Structure formats: C-alpha cells, structure tokens
C-alpha cells in the first residue's frame, strides 16, 4: 500500500515537469515578457527602461529554456523555466506579475470555490444516483422511457442557458436569492443558486451514466440469487445493487474530488464568486503568467492525487482489490 502510493507519487514528477514545459511553451510563444510588462504597466507614458526594470524585478530578464551566455549547468539553470519550475515543485508560487503573493490569494479564494463545488458535487451525485436507481427499478416501463427522454433533453441544453435561466427566474423575477456575489459570513444564500444550477445542468449526463452502470449490475447473477432468496425488490436495489454499482461510479467520481478545490470557471465567473475558478479565468484574460502557471500546476497535482484516491477508494469499497 504505502510503497504503491510512493511509487505513484514518484511517477507524478515527470508528469508535472511535462505539464510545466507545455505551459511555458504555450504561454511564451504567445506573449513575450515585454508584452506582459506592457500589459501590467498600463498604456500611458511607458518607457523601455520601465519595462526592463519590471522584467528584472520578476526574473523575466533571462532566456526562456537555454541560456547560451552562462557556462556549464548554468546554460540550463539560469533560465526562466528552470528557476520558476524549481520553485513550483516546492509549492512556492511566489508573487503574481502584479505583485501579490499567489499562495495567499489561493488560500483565500479556495473557500468560496469549495463552498460552491462541494455541495454541487455531493447533491449532484445523490440526485443522479437516486434518479438512476428509480429508473433502473422501473426499467422496461414507460416511466423509464420518459425519464430517459427527459435526461437527453436536459443534456442537450447548453449549460449557459441554465445559468441565464437561473439568474433570470430565481434572482430577478422571484427575488429568492442574490443574483451574484459572495459573503464569507453567510455563504448559503449566495451558494444556493449556483448549486441548484450546477446540479440541474449535470443531471442529464449523470443519470444516464449511472443508469447504464446499474443496469449492467442488475443483470448480474448475484442479483438473481438475492431475488431467489426472496429479498424484496427495494432491498435488492439498496443492499445488493447499489454497493456494487458504486464501484464503477467511483472511478468516474473520485478523480474530480480534489479538483473541486479549483472551483468551476463558468459558474464562478457567472455568479461573481471570488473563487479559484474565476481567479484562473481573470489571470488568463490579464495574461498574468505567474498565476496561470501556478493554477495549472496546482490543477495537475490535484488531478494526480485524484487518480491516486481513485485507486485507494477501490480498496475501500471492493474487497477484491488489493494495491501492490
């Protein structure tokens, strides 16, 4: 177990390096440090000297990947890439291009993100599973047909519509919740709408997925055994089908749990929630490379953790699986 986890973590390192490399390549291909400087310094009265100064302060005055001036290892180490990456691997995010401590921002912004994403996630899964179970219970009835048709419709609607509709009705017409914003003191009122929207937007796809999983389980022999034992239908559903069905469900679900931390780009920017999702989006628009880099890095780390968690969660729910 322990050795397994360690191995997986070691395996993560090359991935992280790869991720970093890619990010750098992409980002610096599209905008050179000079341009970044210009964006950051604003338009009026900017001189070359100021730009040089800015770059120097943030260590963008070195070559990207290979430093031909420096000798020996220097050719590789005295570069933007090396210096920035090394810090990242140690989780030192440093300062954003506009001079704020990134880790401080992350620490602060993760809470709103979590406040939205966790409820969305949990409620979402519960709702989906319940509906799916219901459908499986009534499979080969008109109820199933209707439910599935509904699901297809739901997932044929662009998520943007859910957001627009949600804000229009809940916040504007019915004045039930604030249209947007967030207050750390009383998050519930603000989180409610995003959560509802998020859940509804996900219900179509989720239900369909879980239904197929459950149907597959429902055709297994042990279900027949259970019914041959005289177990009533509901009990079969909950005591036998559900626990087994959860195993495949886990694969699709556990991976994203750590990523909940990153929040949702769309929802957060629509509902003005100061989470990490909108943070990333703003950084992209402002071309604040330091932040983008950190978020990407964070994202991939979380993703890898997610993969790990998935494996571990298997051992918890499925007695057959042993990690080695």
């Amino acid at each position, binding site marked *: 177990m322990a050795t397994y986890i360690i191995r997986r973590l070691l395996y993560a390192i090359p991935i992280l390096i790869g991720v970093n490399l890619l990010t750098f390549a992409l980002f610096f291909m599209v905008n050179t440090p000079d*341009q970044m400087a210009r964006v950051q310094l604003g338009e*009026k009265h900017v001189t070359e000297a100021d730009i040089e100064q800015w770059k120097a302060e943030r260590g963008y005055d070195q070559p990207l990947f290979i430093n031909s001036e420096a000798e020996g290892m220097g050719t590789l180490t005295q570069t933007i890439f090396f210096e920035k990456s090394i810090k990242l691997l140690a989780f030192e995010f440093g300062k954003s291009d506009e001079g704020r401590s990134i880790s401080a921002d992350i620490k602060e912004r993760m809470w709103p993100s979590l406040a939205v994403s966790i409820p969305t996630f949990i409620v979402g899964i*519960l709702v989906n599973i319940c509906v799916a179970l219901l459908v499986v*219970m009534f499979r080969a009835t008109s109820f199933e047909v209707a439910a599935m048709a509904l699901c297809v419709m739901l997932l044929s609607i662009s998520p943007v519509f859910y957001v627009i509709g949600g804000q229009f009705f809940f916040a504007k017409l019915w*004045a*039930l*919740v604030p249209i947007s914003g967030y207050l750390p003191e009383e998050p519930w009122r603000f989180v409610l709408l995003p959560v509802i929207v998020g859940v509804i937007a996900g219900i179509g796809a989720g239900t369909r997925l879980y239904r197929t999983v459950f149907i597959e389980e429902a055709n297994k022999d042990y279900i027949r055994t259970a019914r041959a034992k005289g177990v009533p239908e509901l009990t079969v559903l909950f005591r036998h089908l559900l626990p087994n069905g959860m195993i495949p469900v886990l694969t699709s679900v556990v991976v994203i749990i750590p990523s909940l931390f990153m929040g949702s780009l769309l929802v957060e920017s629509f509902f003005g929630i100061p989470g990490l999702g909108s943070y990333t989006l703003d950084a992209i628009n402002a071309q604040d490379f330091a932040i983008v880099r950190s978020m990407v890095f964070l994202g991939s780390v979380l993703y890898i953790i997610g993969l790990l968690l998935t494996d571990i969660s298997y051992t918890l729910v499925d007695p057959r699986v042993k990690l080695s």
Partner: protein
Amino acid sequence: MNLVQRLSALLALSLMVSGCGDAIWNNPHPSADRDEVVLYSNFSERPKHLDPARSYSADESQFIDQVYEPPLQYHYLKRPYELEPATLTQMPELYFLDEEGNRLPEDAENPAYSVYDLTLKPGIMYQPHPSFARNDDGSFYYDFANAEESSAYRTLKDFTEMGTQELTADDYIYQIKRLADPKRLAPLRGLLSKYIVGMKEFSEEVAARRENMGSNDWLDLRELEMAGLEKVDDYRFRIKLKGVYPQFQYWLAFHFFAPVPWEVDRFYHLPGLPERNITLDWHPVGTGAFMMVENNPNSQIVLQRNPNFRDDFYPTEGMPEDQHNGLLADAGQKVPFIDRAVYRLEKEAIPIWTKFMQGYYDRSGISNDSFDQAVDMSSDGINLSDDMRSKGVHLDKATRPSTFYLGMNMLDPVVGGDSERARKLRQAIAIAYDTEEFIQIFLNGRGEPGMSPVPPGIFGHQVGEEGINPLVYDWVDGKPQRKSIEEAKRLLAEAGYPDGRDAETGEPLVLNLDITSTSSTKARLAWMQKQFNKIDLQLNIRATDYNRFKEKLETGNAQIFFFGWLADYPDPENFLFLLHGPNAQVDSKSGVNATNFKNARYDELFAQMKLLPNGPERMEVIREMIDILRTEAPWTSMFHGHDYMLNNAWVSNSKLHGISKATLKYIKIDPELRQQKQREWNKPNLVPLVLVILLLAALIFPAIMVYQRRQKQTIGE
C-alpha cells in the same frame, strides 16, 4: 450514507439562513447592517496599484483619490473645471527666474526657470496608522531588525497600535522624490524629469544607490537632495521648473503629488513586510476624508471615514442650475456625509444593473443594454424613463473630457502619408463613417460627434456653426448635417478610387481595421463594414488580442484603428499633444501619438499654444491647429463620450466631475429610505418554489403507483 446527513444539514442551514435573515432574501450585502451610513458601490477591475506615485488609471483613482490629498483639488460644482486649494492656504504662487536665479517680472519672455511656492494649512492630521505609532520616548513602536521579528504580523490588521501626525512640507517633498525613484515606476517620471530641476540627476543617484541594496530594503530618500525642491519651513516649500510649464498646476491636483511621509515609507519597508503584500502599493495612508480599512481585490474594498480629517466643507456656490437641482442644499456643511463606502467586485454588467434596480447599489452607470429601460431619448435630449422616475431614481449627466477616434496610421502606404490621394481618401472615409449613427446604436446617444480633438468643457472647444468641421459637415438650419455620400464618393474618385476600385488596376480597395477582439462584437463589425461599403470600400477586420494591437501601433503596422484618450487635466494641451510630432509613436516609444502624425506647422503652433494662457490669442492658435488636423484628417469621425450616472432616490449631492474622482466626500445617503425601498422592491415570491415541489411530487407519485401495482402483480390467465 453520511453524505445524506451532511447534505441535509447543509440544505436546512441554507434555508434557515435565507428564511429568517429578514424579509428580503436576495440581499447581496450582510443582512446585519450596522447603524452607520454605508454607501454600496462596485468595481470591475481589481486595482493593481494604489501607490500614488504609480497608480494611473481611473478605477484606481476612485479609491485612492478619497484617501490622498494633493495640494490642489477641483471645485466640485463649478464648470468649466476650476482648481482650488485643498491642503494649501491659497493657490500656489508662481514666479519666474532667469539663469542666475534672479526674479523676473510676470510678463517676462521665455524665462529660464519658473517656481511654484506652496503654503500648507496647519493642523492637517493623517489618518490613524501603525506607521505613526511611537513609544513615549518618541522611538517607533513598530521596528524590526529582521523578518523573524515581524513574522507574527501577517496582514496590516495585525498592527493594532495606531498613531497619527501632522502633514508637513517634507511629506510632499518626499513624495516628489519618490516620483523620481526609478524603482517606483512612476508613469510621470519621464515627463516630469524634463521640467523639475535636478530630477533626472536625482533618479540617477538613486539608481546608483540601489545598485548594492536588496530589492526590499528601504532607501531613505531624505538622504539625497533634489535641486528643484526647497523646503522653506514645515508648512512651506517650493518646486523649481525649467522654463515654463503652465500645465504643471494641473498635475498638482493629481494624486502623484499627494503627500507620503518618510515614516510611512520606512514602515512599509520594515523587514518581512513587503514579502507579505504589506506595501504602500496596497495600503494607502493619507490625510483624505476616507481611509482604506479593507483592501481585498478578490471580493471588496472598504473605505472608512477618517476620524482625523481636517475641517472641510461643502461648496457654497456653484452653477446656476445646481440651486434647483438641490445640489446646494448642504452648502457649507461639514463633509464627508457618509461613514463607510463598500465597493464590491462585480465583473458582469447584468448583475450590477439588476442589483441597482433592486436597490442594493446606490449608484450605477448605464450599460448599453439597460439603457432603453433607464432613459427615454426624446426630442429634447435624454430623460429618465417613467419606470425610473417612479422608482425615484435621478439622473446626472456630464461630458467626460475625452475623445475617441478612428485613427489613420500616417505611416501606412494607402491611408497614410502626405499625398493628396491619401488625404482625400481619409476625408472620404470621414464623411462615410456615420458617427451619429454609431453613437445612436452603440452608445445610445451617450456622446456627441467630435468636430476636433478638443472635447467640450475644455478651452478651445467651439460650439455652433464655427465649431463644425466644414469638410465633413454642412450647417443646415441650425444643425450640423453630415455631407452626402455622393460628396464622399466624389472625393474617393478624386483620390483615384472611382467606385472604390483602383483607377489603374481596377482592383477593389480593401482597407484593414485593427481592433481588439474583446471590443469587437459581431454587431459592431458588421456595422463598420456597412459604413465603408457605403462608398464601395471593402473593410477587412483584423481582430486580435490587446498585446498584438499595442504591438502593431508601436511598430506602425496598423492601418485603421480605434483609439481614445481621457483627459488628465482640463487643458487643450492634454489633447493636442496627442498629435505632436515629437510624440510620434514609432520613434518616441512614449505611445501617445498613435497615428504618427507629423506636421511642421502644427508642431510650431503647439509650442506656442502650450505656453499661452487661455484667451483669444490662444484660441486663434488652437483654431489653426485644428484646421490643419481637419484637412489632414489623421483622426476621422471622432466623438466625445457622455457620462451618465443613475442615483437611487436616497442618494443626494451627486454631480459627475469629468476630471476629479475625489468626490465621494460630497455624496449623501438616506439609509431609512433605502431600507424601506429595498423591502418594497424585493418581496420574495414563494409560489414557484411550491410549484416545483408539487411538480416533483407529481413525478414521484406515478412511480409509487407503478411499484405498488408491480408488488400486487400476479401471472394471470
């Protein structure tokens, strides 16, 4: 199943909070409102810099201009804009010197130096701030030898011990030195070095000093002297400029010249603080009416009334109409009127508008889309819609001294250059491109077509018949009327493009519009192409991100582009210098003269105009300059934006100021009225909720029925 428990707990809580908070559920502000008078507003761009030496954008000014007090300020009500002393006893005394430093008479021909003599009001105190906290022995309360000692202080709030001190001349001098410090990246450094005596040298010295210093160490600028600065006594100091620079007085009303005491600078450079974002760039310290108590660009910025604020009073005289607009009701009262101002981060236009309509924001601009809802455009200009009137909203308009234009890159082979051909082409475009319609469709009439770069409210702007651009407009029964398309086509033909086709090759003329993708909506692009098609020109749109756009301008690779300028100060110089040859983008990277327009005569006139005081003589010069611009037409189809501000019923004393942002202290709010209206406008509607629940039930019920039936089912013959 513990998931279920957590979930249900969560839901229950959320319902409870929203339920028993108070009658209104959709209040985006803390439902428990303290009994202070709070103004709620919003900001869309997180301010990047709050250091008065560094900050140079409107959305930053709206915060720090409440905190910092430069020597001068603008009169709140008077138009045209008028300077008045803020921390000074009277307007600065200006006199001229010759090379030797002998005082010259007022009317001396181009003197060597000009000196500004400023005298401060005594007894002006700073806001409470830890940097002023001292022990009984006068030593600083907060003093750390190294980062470890300060490690306990994560944020500025952790510094509980406060202190204050009086404003002195040193503070202004220190700030001017900061402007010269290269590390501050002061936008104005380049410009001011040209004028303030010894500033350039000072910068170099500082740079030299910094060579062997950590990037976060404090350099006490008092150790170095700037020739052009002279402290007379604690309340009096002089600034010495090379030659004459009449516009300098306007800069004195800009926060660049706000006081920064060395104590503050020292404090923010204590070991370990800069690493933790505890810097002057984030936590301003000033003598203004408000002080920044919370600066969280992720969610909100809060200004709090400065308890030590000097005695300052609401102006007693204003423009004639102000009287009946009730703007003089509080004449002579002590400002500020509100205790707190909360600015919340809002990125989307829609929520802002909705919240304003729900009464959760006290004031709001008018976005395009909410415009028709907000106002009616009747024959007699723009008025509030009935809907708004019924809500008690009142509107307040102003022309922002600004000019937006369609720039022609003068280095471009087709549209640019001094050739008759290009000139005619530019003029043709100027006629074809229907600015009026643009303003109608995309600004809902919130603007006026520009006859010259000089916007209304600035000296040199002319109205009426003599104001119009005769090359584009005719004066028809008391109104300017755009010349006919035929006229444009004629010009085009003369330019050698009959029917928009090159006379030689017969190739259709395709022009390129450079634009940033963010500002280019489908509708807008379509509209522009329509304009050029009117005279059979093909317009090719090159949308790109802001960086590329800037780069194109700098390298002179743009052809036609959109650009604009907001006034720094109310003087024609601030607009006409945008076409001053030496400022041409491509050779001087200063980035003002984006069209790279060069014209010897114009530059000559510019030099004169700059020094002249406002008056008929200056007017003449400006007229000639403008005529040059009209014929050359490097800027076509200009317009000047109008500002509209909607105020909810409970807001009073709101009058937009085109230049100054330091107007918060004059705003007044009636909290009771606000609360009452909010309740009235936000009655939660529970019916839909009930419906949803019923619907769910309706869904579940048949399922249960089916189940029952299935349980009863037998295999029947």
